[in-house]
């Protein structure tokens, strides 16, 4: 008998249908990967199992956990099941822990609300669970607060909270999406080990096919609230039936076509740049040493090139992009665009534009798209003409009428197109893409990458592509820089760096990145 059996689960929230006849089974010791893009209903399926749904939610069908029918259970039974029989790990480790309680208290709480044990016994158990999650007490005392830990360490605490009572089922909702690749690999290994040791069933929800294909026994693919395909991981990978599954796999390994020529002229030159941040004062007497975010960084970008810049969070990628745009003063070095110093000569910056990661936060919600797109002109003391606005919107695949709409009327992918239109309108030579496709679903990401490739072919645009995602860099860039602790530790031709990396860190980075083997013969 399976551990968790979901049969014909339908869910509506305030009358709007969200899930439609979802069925899946998870057995003990089995890893079930649930894959889908945003809005596919995968997280709400998980929350239905926990019955932690938003207000106005109505479920029908059946969710059986061993012999308990979850949809019939009262709140008291559910509180008993949560944390004891089913543990859950969420996506965002930075906010999943209570900031005013120590990690020991938070792990011990799971134990103390379900079992009659003394505070000190619960703390001993919490310490053991944290050790199991690779946070030994010697290095990470129970008295630590969440803000004293990194993202990966916090995620281990969240996992410890979820498995403290050795639940039969663990639900992990995008547990590694917010983490760096090397941390992601460690957390996935930890989850795999826990499943093997304790015989838990694991429902692993993700948008990233590569994360799941390696470790899952069973895969469920969801789209628009329905299960479109499911089966054994290996069998599914070699024999996909549903067109959506095929398009998902295809988008994940998508290779955009760029035909532009790279010229020999240097467009952007960064020479020996140093950027220090002042640190908070810890001692009364000693002045704190500054934090060196960029340490002697030098590189060139040639006209028409796409240069990838990869590195994990905190390595200095965004600091570098801010320095290039002249937003932050540097403490040494020279940055020139077309031979003009970006700090000394403000007009030099007119030839570069930036597209940021968050398509939701980077627009003023109170202006219409037409005005938002013409913003780069404001510095020049004029506003864009109607023709210019229409041209830029059309060039990114939007309609001329879209200029009269507000930003909330657009989806994430469309907003990112608007951000690109805003960058293009002033006819720049260099576009800095700072994690510009990281927040997008794979199919949308493939479309945006195609758009960028097309624009660079048509207009000879140069890109600085900053990302933590190696797959994207591999797909689009000509050369790649690898950054760590404020230094460029490796650079070279994309193919060379990926095939024969020199630096140990680059090797580790490439090895950690989950990969899907391209599947032959998929036609859509």
């Amino acid at each position, binding site marked *: 008998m399976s551990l968790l059996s979901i049969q014909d689960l339908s869910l509506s929230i305030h009358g709007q249908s969200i899930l439609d006849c979802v069925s899946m089974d998870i057995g003990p010791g089995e890893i079930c990967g649930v894959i889908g893009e945003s809005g596919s209903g995968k997280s709400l399926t998980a929350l239905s199992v926990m019955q932690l749904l938003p207000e106005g939610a109505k479920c029908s069908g059946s969710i059986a956990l061993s012999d308990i029918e979850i949809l019939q259970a009262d709140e008291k039974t559910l509180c008993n099941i949560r*944390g004891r029989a089913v543990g859950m790990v969420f996506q965002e480790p930075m906010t*999943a822990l209570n900031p005013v309680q120590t990690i020991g208290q938070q792990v011990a709480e799971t134990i103390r609300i379900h079992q009659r044990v003394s505070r000190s016994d619960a703390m001993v158990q919490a310490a053991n669970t944290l050790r199991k999650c690779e946070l030994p007490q010697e290095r990470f005392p129970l008295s630590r607060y969440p803000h004293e830990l990194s993202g990966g360490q916090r995620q281990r605490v969240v996992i410890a*909270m979820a498995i403290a009572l050795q639940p039969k089922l663990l639900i992990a909702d995008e547990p590694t999406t917010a983490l760096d690749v090397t941390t992601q690999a460690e957390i996935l290994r930890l989850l795999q080990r826990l499943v093997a040791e304790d015989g838990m069933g694991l429902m692993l929800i993700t948008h990233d096919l590569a994360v799941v294909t390696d470790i899952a026994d069973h895969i469920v693919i969801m789209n628009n609230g329905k299960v479109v395909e499911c089966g054994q991981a290996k069998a599914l990978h070699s024999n996909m039936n549903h067109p959506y599954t095929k398009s998902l796999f295809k988008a994940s390994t998508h290779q955009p076509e760029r035909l532009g020529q790279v010229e020999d002229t240097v467009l952007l030159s960064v020479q020996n740049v140093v950027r220090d941040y002042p640190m908070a*004062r*810890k001692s009364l007497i000693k002045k704190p040493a500054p934090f060196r975010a960029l340490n002697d960084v030098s590189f060139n970008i040639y006209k028409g090139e796409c240069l990838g810049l990869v590195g994990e969070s905190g390595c200095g990628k965004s600091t570098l992009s801010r320095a290039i745009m002249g937003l932050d003063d540097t403490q040494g070095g020279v940055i020139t665009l077309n031979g003009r110093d970006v700090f000394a000569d403000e007009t030099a910056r007119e030839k570069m534009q930036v597209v940021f990661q968050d398509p939701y936060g980077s627009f003023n919600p109170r202006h219409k798209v037409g005005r938002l797109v013409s913003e780069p002109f404001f510095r020049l003391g004029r506003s864009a003409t109607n023709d210019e606005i229409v041209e830029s919107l059309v060039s990114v695949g939007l309609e001329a009428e879209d200029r009269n709409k507000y930003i909330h009327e657009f989806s994430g992918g469309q907003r990112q197109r608007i951000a690109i239109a805003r960058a293009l309108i002033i006819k720049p030579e260099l576009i800095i893409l700072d994690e510009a496709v990281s927040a997008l679903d794979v199919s949308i990401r493939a479309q945006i990458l195609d758009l960028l490739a097309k624009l660079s072919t048509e207009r000879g645009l140069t890109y600085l592509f900053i990302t933590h995602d190696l797959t994207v860099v591999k797909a689009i860039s000509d050369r790649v820089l690898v950054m760590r602790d404020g230094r460029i530790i490796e650079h070279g031709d994309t193919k060379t760096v990926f095939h024969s990396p020199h630096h140990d860190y680059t090797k580790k980075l490439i090895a950690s990145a989950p990969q899907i083997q391209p599947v032959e013969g998929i036609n859509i």
Partner: protein
Amino acid sequence: MLPYLIKRLGSLIVSLFVASLVIFACIEIVPGDPASFMLGVNAQPDTVNALREELGLNTSHTQRYVSWISGLLKGDLGTSYTYRSPVSDIVADRLQVSVPLALYALTLTILIAFPVGVLAAAWRGSAVDLFVMGATQLGIAVPNFWFAILMVIVFAINLGWFSAGGFPGWDAGILAVIKALTLPAVALALPQASILARVMRSSLLDTLSEDYIRSARAKGLSRRQVMWRHALRNAMIPVLTIIGLQFSFLLAGAIIIENVFFLPGLGRLVFQAITQRDLIVVESVVMLLVFAVVLVNFLVDLAYAWVDPRLRERS
């Protein structure tokens, strides 16, 4: 923690120093002679000169500032011109009314606002919540002196439970003091409690939508447990800020209520001193109030650090 404490303490001292300069400048340096201002337009030149001598106005600004500050530090606030007695004695008298009244009103404020705010947040959107939102709206909108007059009619005149005004002094016993201060404290507390309950509610609602609340629910905590163990403490920062502001306000801003109930408090003292042009009293009492406000803010800062471990390290 220590750098945080020292930094807060430093900012307390700097605030006091700057405030003392501003008060001194406003009263003693700006054009116009304090002595002739105090005595009015019809005063004889001899009288004005005598007062100038008494006030030390013939010495330099620096000398006067230094002697004023050193007097303050020793507890010597000068001698009131109208009352002809040491300002420190008058102020001490008034504080016997104002401090208990402010504390009484603040306690009532917190006792009303906390449960009401928690209840409204826990039952968001329900009839309870709607009632709380309506009632607090009313509490803020209705002027408290009008409410005070109503209470006097009902509870003092008709029912005779409390006194309608005046302060019997602490010698009359604690019961008499409570009888005298209850109605003014309630009148002061109602609008403040309405504000605080609303702040409490919205801060709790923000906190309840945080990810860690969902994590806690996933551990098996009930709604009620989540509220007490996780939400309340995290929601305290904005609430503490408002409580700090309210205490400062209650200490000095009770002037209308003091007038309605005929209470000899600080607010009335300042008001009378201003109308009687007794600048010595005004100067010292204003400085004292600034000290109280700055001190309360310092205590609120300490409370922040106690609530939130992240603030202990930030300097």
